[in-house]
């Protein structure tokens, strides 16, 4: 199928909207758009960050997921208590594959689930006492934890527990930071508000901890990697490039990160933001309070990596700038070989994405490096500023969908017939059963890393083995195949 024109895409949106009742149609129409690169402000054509319609299938998460699952969870040397009933923490435990080094259960706690396991009596009489007891137990069992965070689940806000008071009291007793986070799931329309609440908690409880303490020796080349959750090792694959350039990575936020790294971040010279959506708040705060500039970068695919490395280097002196060129040159043979190998197998393939955070726009470059084209993209929980950034990356007349519903996504796929879909686990099996190759792009389908030059090699291999997998030719049962193709096979 050739690229769709603006009118065709518009017609497709209208056709898909047909199925809704009037009111729902009017609402959903605002979230679907045909990309137009000439529009500067996305709010003119697409609405985002609104409450999902009751009754439609949305794949959004909750504020607790944004705070515990995304921002706080990966900080490895802290214990994060899922405060409330057991399920929220248990069903999200370790699913994001934020890799880290350390001895789990001794000095790191990333893949463990700590919960106050609320019962009926805790809802009726309040859970503050239980929280205090739980904190004591954790201290006894895991004395090497550097701090704790209390991640509120829905009931905490509903029954009005005072987790701040408990945290303060216990923090003093144990002489450890205990951070209460008011990220009850019902707050906001998606996990996005959870990111914001988590950022605010970091601002209030962590960032200022080492103000006025100059014992940490700094260099002019200190940077922090912000908004890289080290999924499948992403942050490591990014970090080595920065280090080869001569920069010193003081902190990783928050994949494989530690509490002290976060406390030291205000001492760096530049904050590098990968996931803008989840951590722009804290970067803006550090810019305002400490005068640390921040910049967004993109480490997916060689074109964007080179662009980003140069942009980062431009903040520093000529040695770093020369080093950046050296790094790019050093990896050139490697990534050219990857492109030479996979591009012929992937050229012209069309991709539809529907993910969160940064990927719906950041991975476009990596696909383009492989000769592929992204024909539709959308975010679960983006805001206008994300779409502002996306519209420049996407081709004209491609499809944009915000908080897409299960029905819409399926219909779009049926019409657009992409060669690959990149989305989450909830979408994966539906599309595979429809016979469309699929990659789970939240945690890289148990693969990764995808960041950096090393990650690009894995990315290219994964896309190839998914799209060119022989299984897609066997989607039809042999007895349903047309008679003539059968006789052909026999003759062959």
């Amino acid at each position, binding site marked *: 199928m050739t690229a769709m024109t603006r009118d065709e895409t518009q017609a497709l949106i209208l056709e898909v909207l047909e199925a809704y009742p009037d009111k729902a149609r009017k609402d959903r129409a605002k979230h679907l758009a045909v990309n137009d690169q000439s529009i500067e*402000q996305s709010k003119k054509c697409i609405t985002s960050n609104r409450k999902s319609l009751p009754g439609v299938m949305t794949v959004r998460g909750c504020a607790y997921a944004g705070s515990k699952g995304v921002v706080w969870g990966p900080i490895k040397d802290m214990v994060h208590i899922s405060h409330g009933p057991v399920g929220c923490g248990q069903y999200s435990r370790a699913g994001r594959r934020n890799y880290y080094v350390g001895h789990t259960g001794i000095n790191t706690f990333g893949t463990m689930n700590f919960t106050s396991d609320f019962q009926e009596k805790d809802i009726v009489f309040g859970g503050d006492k239980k929280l205090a007891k739980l904190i004591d137990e954790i201290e006894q069992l895991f004395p090497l934890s550097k701090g704790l965070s209390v991640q509120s689940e829905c009931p905490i806000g509903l029954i009005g527990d005072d987790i701040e008071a408990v945290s303060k009291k216990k923090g003093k007793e144990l002489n450890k930071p205990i951070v209460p986070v008011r990220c009850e799931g019902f707050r906001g329309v998606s996990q996005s508000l959870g990111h914001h609440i988590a950022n605010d908690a970091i601002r209030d409880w962590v960032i200022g901890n080492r103000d006025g303490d100059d014992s940490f020796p700094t260099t002019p080349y200190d940077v922090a990697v912000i908004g890289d959750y080290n999924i499948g090792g992403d942050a490591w694959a990014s970090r080595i490039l920065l280090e080869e350039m001569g920069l010193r990575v003081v902190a990783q936020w928050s994949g494989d990160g530690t509490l002290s790294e976060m406390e030291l971040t205000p001492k760096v010279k530049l904050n590098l933001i990968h996931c803008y959506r989840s951590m722009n708040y804290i970067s*803006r705060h550090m*810019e*305002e309070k400490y005068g640390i500039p921040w910049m967004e970068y993109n480490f997916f695919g060689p074109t964007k990596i080179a662009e980003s490395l140069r942009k980062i280097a431009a903040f520093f002196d000529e040695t770093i700038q020369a080093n950046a060129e050296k790094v790019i040159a050093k990896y050139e043979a490697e990534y050219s070989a990857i492109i030479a190998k996979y591009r012929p197998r992937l050229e012209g393939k069309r991709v539809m994405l529907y993910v969160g955070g940064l990927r719906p726009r950041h991975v476009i470059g990596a696909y383009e490096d492989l000769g592929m084209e992204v024909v539709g993209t959308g975010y679960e929980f983006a*805001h*206008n*500023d994300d779409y*502002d950034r996306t519209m420049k990356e996407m081709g004209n007349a491609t499809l944009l969908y915000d908080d897409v519903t299960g029905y819409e996504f399926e219909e779009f796929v049926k019409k657009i017939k992409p060669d690959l879909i990149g989305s989450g686990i909830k979408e994966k099996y539906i599309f595979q059963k429809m016979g469309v190759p699929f990659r789970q792009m939240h945690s890289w389908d148990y693969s990764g890393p995808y960041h950096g030059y090393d990650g690009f090699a894995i990315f290219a291999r994964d896309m190839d083995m998914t799209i060119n997998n022989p299984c897609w030719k066997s989607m039809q049962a042999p007895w349903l195949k047309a008679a003539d193709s059968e006789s052909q096979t026999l003759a062959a």
Partner: protein
Amino acid sequence: MPNVMLRKNDNGDVLFYVAKKDMEETIASVEMNTAETWGGMVTLTDGSTWYIDPISPPPVFPTTLRFKRGDE
């Protein structure tokens, strides 16, 4: 009266960011923008207008200031 975060972008324009509203716009013009004072009516590139009592000496960006809607 929302709190607005103001910062300069790479081109030297001032960005106008309202976290509560996820609004990230660029300031198109400021009524008073001299060496001594900054403020008054502020027009954004999306056409909306906002007001802040003129500040002197001018603020150092980035900073957070409280603005009123221009039509209030």
